[in-house]
Every structure is written in structure tokens, then in C-alpha cells.
């Protein structure tokens, strides 16, 4: 056990926990942030994806000790006030879900993708998202949602082009 300081969704936490514990377990069990999901426990499905310093990371295989002091964002941290993040809104607009258990992880991965590539091609979306599984098979909708969010987030020039 050790005291670990975490910054999650702009809030600071100080926890007594085993640094070897997975970040996912800490989020879900200790902090009651259950939006990040367990799907496989080996980084294969992406349901647990969170942002660590802006980069997508599988929280189920991330030791909590390794992210002390870093900026962690979970699905719960995307909403600003009452406003959905453009990626969240795009998932709603494209009905890009069925059981939606993968949705948190899909959205977090998509946010990470769009942070590093504002206008990804379909090929780039597929390559980046390939580690996220949707067993219900809503992949074509998720691709469309990411494209829609990209247009919504892009600067005015691209926005005009998208219409």
C-alpha cells in the first residue's frame, strides 16, 4: 500500500492503495467512476479506455502507480456543465450504439484520435479504433459518428466544406 495522488477529470484524489492495482479497478471500486467498463482485462477490447495526458490508454492494464500525477480523463469528465462533448453528441446523432457497453471506451478512443488527427480518413479511423470491440457490430455508425464529430470540431473552413 502507498499513498497515490491522482488527477481525474480535473479533480485531485489522494488514495491509499496498492500501486500495482489496475487503474480500472481503482476508478470503479474506489472512486465509483463506473463509466469505464471491464470487458477483457487484457487490453483487447477497449471498453476501459481513458485518456492519460490526452492519450488513449487501456485502464485495465494500466497500473495505478504509473499514472500518479498525470492528467486522467474518464467518460464522466467529458461533459462540460450540461453540454455533451461533440463526440458524445455525434454518437447520439448517429445512433452509434446498441447495448452501449462499449460506448464509453469508443468515445474515449475517438476523442484521443481527434486530438491527434483533426480530420481522420476512414482508413485512419479503422486503424486507430481497431482495438475497440463492439460485439453488437455498430462499427459503421461509430465511424460515421467520428466523422461527424470531426466536422463539428473542425475550424470554420472545414465546417463550411462539410455542409
Amino acid at each position, binding site marked *: 500500500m502507498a499513498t497515490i495522488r491522482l488527477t481525474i477529470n480535473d479533480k485531485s484524489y489522494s488514495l491509499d492503495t*496498492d500501486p500495482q*492495482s489496475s487503474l480500472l*479497478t481503482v476508478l*470503479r*471500486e474506489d472512486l*465509483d*467512476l*463506473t*463509466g*469505464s*467498463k*471491464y*470487458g*477483457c*482485462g*487484457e487490453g*483487447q*477490447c477497449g*471498453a476501459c479506455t481513458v485518456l492519460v495526458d490526452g492519450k488513449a490508454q487501456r485502464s485495465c492494464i494500466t497500473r495505478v502507480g504509473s499514472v500518479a500525477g498525470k492528467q486522467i480523463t*474518464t*467518460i*464522466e469528465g*467529458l*461533459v462540460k456543465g450540461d453540454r*455533451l462533448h461533440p463526440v*458524445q*453528441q455525434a*454518437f*447520439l446523432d448517429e*445512433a452509434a*450504439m*446498441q*447495448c*452501449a*457497453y*462499449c*460506448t*464509453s471506451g469508443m*468515445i474515449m478512443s475517438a476523442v484521443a484520435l481527434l486530438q491527434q488527427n483533426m480530420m481522420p480518413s476512414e482508413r485512419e*479511423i*479503422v*486503424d486507430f*479504433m*481497431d*482495438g*475497440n*470491440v*463492439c*460485439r*453488437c*457490430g*455498430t*462499427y*459503421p*455508425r*461509430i*465511424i460515421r459518428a467520428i466523422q461527424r464529430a470531426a466536422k463539428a470540431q473542425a475550424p470554420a473552413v472545414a465546417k463550411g466544406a462539410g455542409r
Partner: protein
Amino acid sequence: MNMKAMSETPLEPERYELRAQAPYRFDLDRRDFFKFLGAGIVVVSVLKPTIVAQESGGGRQRDGDGLPQEIDAWLHIGENGKVTAYTGKVEVGQNIRTSLSQAVAEELHVPIERIELVMGDTQLTPFDMGTFGSRTTPTMNLQLRKVAAAAREALLALATEQLQADRQQLRAAESRISDPKTNRIIDYAALLKGQQITKTIAADQPLIAASQWKVAGQSVPRVDGRDFVTGRHRYPSDQKLPGMLYGKVLRPPAFNATLVSADPKNAGQMGVTVVRDGNFVGVAAPSSKAAETALAAIHAEWKAKPQISNKELFDYLRKNAAEGKDPTGDGDRFETGSVDQALSSADHKLHATYTVQYVAHVPLEPRAALAKWDGDQLTVWTGTQRPFGVRRQLAEAFRIPEDKIRVLMPDTGSGYGGKHTGETAIEAARLAKAAKQPVKVVWTREEEFSWAYFRPAGVIDVVSGVRNDGTITAWEFHNYNSGSAGIRPYYDIPNQRIVFHEVDSPLRQGSYRALAATANHFARESHMDELAQAVKMDPLEFRLKNLKNERLRAVFEAAAKQFGWGRSKSAGQGFGMGGGYEKLGNIATFAEVYVDSKSGEVKVVRVVSAFECGAVVNPDNLRNQIEGSNMQGLGGALFEVIEFENGKILNGRLSQYRVPRFSDLPVLETVLLDRKDIPSVGAGECPMVGSAPAIANAIFDTTGTRLRALPLVPNGLKTS
């Protein structure tokens, strides 16, 4: 209690379609309704006993007294105008929370956001056999429309009285009733002030025709979508209670093993709850990590018999078929004309064998349950397609009456037929009983792979006869183990012998999306192409020549048109089709594949589906279901297979068992044939059955290699 009895009597590993009897029935007592719901109006839907028998697969137990009534849904409108509909159906991603709300909104003339749907709670909702078999739309959607329509009529009657108006003149819209003559308007809430009205719907309750629908028939957005994109929705595995412990259960090293010894001393010293009860060994601890550590400290010895592997599977299924068993169960045997005569006089006779391996559901949320005891009262939150079935399993396991148990089903992270049973509910309840605290059990992915159940494997033999002009004259079809759903051909064949042979499966097997229909369609639709080839006919022309059913012809023709059937191909490019009739829906699927002749890699490039399920309730959600069926169907067609040996699953992790991913996605095109003149039926299963044969036929089209085993190319196509 004796857990030994529980573990030795399997937890009803239901096979094929469920035939278990319903254990419970509600009595109607209007005072109870209002005590619980508050004043207003309650409309109750009561099924005729014949329908009950159909829906529950064998009728309900009756205690001889009380009302001979079988409630399957009810609806309440409160004095505040709030509408609550109650159904035992559950949400696992089909989005029926939305489509059922649409049904109520349509008939009741209330905005959809004023409707709350209470689902799958054994205390609050009427009994329901379970959410499977694509029954929600043809039955529950219809029942809720009827209760909503009856409520609307009752409100109109109230308004006629209160406004002293001519009933024929009154109009209901937006939770209000208006009299255009006098311009007086009264809303539902005002009408219901102080009222306690109960109504039972008439079987012939008139409904709004699909052609007049305004809310139903539209692509209404998901009613609770925001909760899912924000992570706020609490799935079963997210449930939490104060003082809750985390449970873990010790698994044997092989199936059907018995516990020889277990030493829980080390675990006991860790300050956790340890339970040893027959074959059941489990722990409950304040954190999942502590539970894992304690479980690992238990030294146990198990005894298991040698068991078969994939290698012997198909031989085993043939040899252990229950040939002598009475095959009179639904669809187990069907015979017409004289197959033997027709075969001997056919111009071409074909014999082929098709096989299907076990596959896993892989619901992204593994099984999970949270259980708590209050004295002798047990409450369990769990992800199951059969909350009432799980309640019965709990009653059996703990030897308590069902009315001491409440099972609630929070909207769950998918099922695909894989969550009919209550393993985690029983495990959590057993640990909670010992710990005297609430306990949550969430299976790991590895547990889900090994200790749930699989889609049945199967062997299918087809013998057929065809005339030179392309008329099929004989059709003999034997299915060993995979099941009888979709076993009968929809082609017009005068001489048929169709037999389903039940087998005591070497692996635990059960329901799966479209279940055996996938295997039966794969064999039948592959064989159709083989026959077409034998008589040198185009596969589409050959099908249509032998098919009278107009609805099925229509989907084949629509898909062919959209696909561009008959256009020219380049090297490596193959086209194929498959389709059929299942769960009252009609599907035709056309696939384009590309086979790399050097690497043997098979890529499904494009899939076109035409689907017809009567009047469409929600077009966009229907497309979503069809696209999803195609993606899941593609996995089972190309590469999904459970590898097993001697009672162990060899590829029971997501890094070893391949599921379809973004990179597997073909271009998916969907054609909906909206038949407003035909009652709506379900769509979660049928669209899947065309995928595997369409892909297999397309592979044959470009390579000349006929693949008769699912999965078709788990390691690519052998190009030697």
C-alpha cells in the same frame, strides 16, 4: 442449505428453445394496484390461455383457484399525467425501451418523453418467460399498443362526460383531449384527478393502422441515449450497495469435475468470508483484489473424467445422436411425399455434409449480479434475459419460495441469447448469505468463456434430387445437435424428410442469436448453390424457380437489384447469396468477397441485405439491428470457433478468440421492405442467417472451393 444438490443438478442448461413452465401468475386486485401506483387509471393486458401456451412454451402452472387470467403487460397513468408501462421484457441492446415507448406514445397520444418503461423486475412487472426468440415486437409491442389504446378510449369516455361533448368530435393529442366545436381542452392529468379506474383490454381492441402511424414507424432517437454516452447508466456490473463485498468463485480445472478436497485455512486467515458448500467454493472480500488473493490461497483438488476435443467432435455428435428418441417435439421430424422414390428418379442426386463448431456469445459485459438478503428476503440485480427464470433458479438453489425473491434487471451489456441463466445470481446470493452483507460477483472474461454456455455445434447431412430443368424433387436433411430452428425448407419441394437428432452435447450449450437457424440456413443455402451448379443455373434464378413465397421472393429480388447481381467480376472477386425465413422475418443477403490468391486471405468487401418484417416500427433502429446481425454473422461465418480439449477451453480469452473488429467491416447496405399491411415482427435474429451461406457461396464463386464447415476460414483459405 445444501449446495451440493444445487451443483449436481445442473442449472437447467436450457437447450434450443426453452420449454420450461412458467412458475408464477399474478392475481388482479385493483386495490393493490392503486396502493402501489397511486390514483389514476390502470389498463391491464390479459392473454388468452392459448396464446399464453404459445408464448411460454407450454402453459402456466395453475393453482386451481383465483382468476384464470394471464397478465402480460400493464400501464398506469397517474393523476400527474405520468405514464408508466410495465413489461417483463428486458433491454440488452435491441433498443426495445425505445420501440415499446413508441408503441405506447402512438396509441395514447402522449409525448414519448412522458413515458417511463419499467422492465424486467419480478416484483413490479408481469411475468414474462424471457426476452428471446424475437418475440418482443410481435407480442409485447402489440400488447402495449392495445393497453395504450384502451387507456386512450377510457380517457375519451371520461372527457365526453366531463366536457359534456359528443365523443365522436373529441380529439386526443399531446396528452390532451380537445373539443374542436367548443375549443375546450382538458389534459389527461385533470381527467384522472381522484380517479381509480381499472380496465382490462379486449382482445379485439382496435388499433391505429400502421399506415396512419406518426410516432411508431419513425426513427425516434433512443429514449435514454444520453445516459449511455455519459457513462451514467448503471449496468448490472456497475451496481453498488453500502457495505458491499466482492465475490469470487473457485473454478475447477475441467468441466464436470468434482471437488475432492479444498483447504480454505489460508484464505480464512485473511479476514474474508470463505464458503465451501459441496462443489461450491467461494470468497467475499471488501475489494476484488482481496477476493482474488484469498481465492488464490485456497488449495483445492478436483477429479475429472477424460473428455473429447474438437478433433472428435463431429464423430461424437453422429455416434451419440438420440436416434431412437421420440422426435415428435416441435419440428424434430417432418416428412412429406416419398423422398426415396424421388431420389431414385432424379436427374442429379447430391449428397453433402456441413458442420458447425461451437461459438461463444462474448457479450461485452460478462455475467454479473449483486445480491442482498434482508432476513429471508433475497434481492438480486443481474443481467439476464430471463429475470423470472433466474428467480426460479434462486428459489430452487436456496429452497425458498419465489415470493421471497426479487430479481431486477438493469439494462444490460448485451446477451445474444447467452444470458438466460442465473449463475452469478446464485453465486452472489450464496456468498451474501454467508457474509451477511451484500455481495457482487462479476465474471472475468475467462470465466465467461469457460463457464457460460455455447451455441451448439452440429453436423448436417443433406441428400437432394433435382431435375435437369432445375426443379428440386427430393430433400433429405438431418441435423445432429445444432437444433431444429429454421430446419424446414421454404422452397417448394414435394418430397421431404427432415430430422433433428438430439445429442447429449459434450460442452454446455444453449440459446444464441438465431440459434440453429444459422447452421440450418448455412447448410440449406450452400446446398442450393451446389444444386444450381449441378444443373448449370444461375443461383438466383434457381432459387426463384423453386420458391413460391412472395415475401421471400421479394427480399431476394430487392437484394439482387441493390447488389447488382449478374455484373461482371475481376480476379479474386466473388459474389454469393443466402437467405431465408426465420422468426417470422424474411431475409436475403448478398455478399461480395475478395480472396487473395497468394495469401489465401478472405475479405468480405460488401454485404447487401434486404429484410422484411412487416410494418417497420423504427427504421433506423431496424437498420442498426440488421447491420449488427451482419457483423456478428460475419464472425461466425469466417473465423469464430471454440477450441476445447479434455474439458478445457483452449482459447478462452479475447486475445485468443477472434471477434469481428473495425478492420473486418465490409460496406453494409440495407434495403427495408416496409409492409404496412402486415403485423410487425422481430428483427434481432433473422437478418443473421443469410451471412454465412452468402459468404461461403461467394468464396466458391471466385475460387471454386466449396467450404462446408463453419467457421469457413479461421486461418485463411488454403490455396495449395
